[in-house]
């Protein structure tokens, strides 16, 4: 496989990483996601890593970079389904995914995105009044 599919679900994008990513594929995904956020004007991105057996510094950096690019484009990123062993290893490795929110599964991640978007829209309305 040379590309990871990105699904659009209304205002949000969903990516499910199901393969052991080699480095170039991870970079391609980062670029594809950024381009798709811009094109679709998406407000949120869910990255499902429940199938990933490890997250090393390279994948960690790709997730952090994607999230900061998304923020610049006014979209929020939520990483869902990180396996407990992966989370423990990341901490010991010394990687902090700064600014990246996490949720237990896709459903909860979607809920998080919806609520934060609703809050934001409410704020925008208040600003206009």
């Amino acid at each position, binding site marked *: 496989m040379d590309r990871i599919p990105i699904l659009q679900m209304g205002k949000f994008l969903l990516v499910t990483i199901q393969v052991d990513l*080699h480095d170039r594929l991870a970079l391609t995904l980062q670029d594809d996601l950024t381009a798709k956020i811009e094109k679709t004007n998406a407000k949120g991105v869910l990255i499902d890593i429940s199938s990933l*057996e490890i997250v*090393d*510094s*390279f994948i960690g950096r790709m997730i952090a970079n994607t999230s900061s690019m998304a923020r610049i484009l006014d979209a929020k990123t939520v990483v869902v389904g990180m396996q407990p062993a992966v989370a423990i*290893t990341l901490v010991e490795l*010394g*990687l902090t995914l700064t600014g990246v929110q996490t949720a237990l599964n896709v459903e909860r991640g979607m809920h998080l995105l919806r609520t934060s978007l609703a809050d934001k829209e409410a704020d925008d309305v208040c600003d206009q009044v």
Partner: protein
Amino acid sequence: MSVIKSDVLPIRSEQDIVLARQAVRKLTQELTFSIVDQTKFVTAASELARNTLIYGGGGDLYWEVILDGGRKGLKLSFKDEGPGIPDLKQAMTDGWTSGHGLGMGLSGSKRLVNDFEIESTPGKGTRVTITRWK
């Protein structure tokens, strides 16, 4: 200490890093490491394999399943004939990178394993050896 089995894997492309991760995962499963120990060891291997490829210009991974007293362990040696590391202390510091990394690979891997050894000679190459005991 005795060697139960061993082999060599090339680290010459990004795909080789993926294959090395998978091979190490399989060995840690055979040794019935806990899921957390498997994940830590495979992550350390991934970091070191990438360093071998990117900074060492490619090299090899020598693995050994070893028996010491009553305990079994997995030992990995990443070896390259690249430029070497002029200042090991600096390279082992959290956050120090000569490239565009996070500088967490070496220092972080050390925390993920039981034994960590690094030898490097400028102009000759680098060898990093890690071991995890069951």
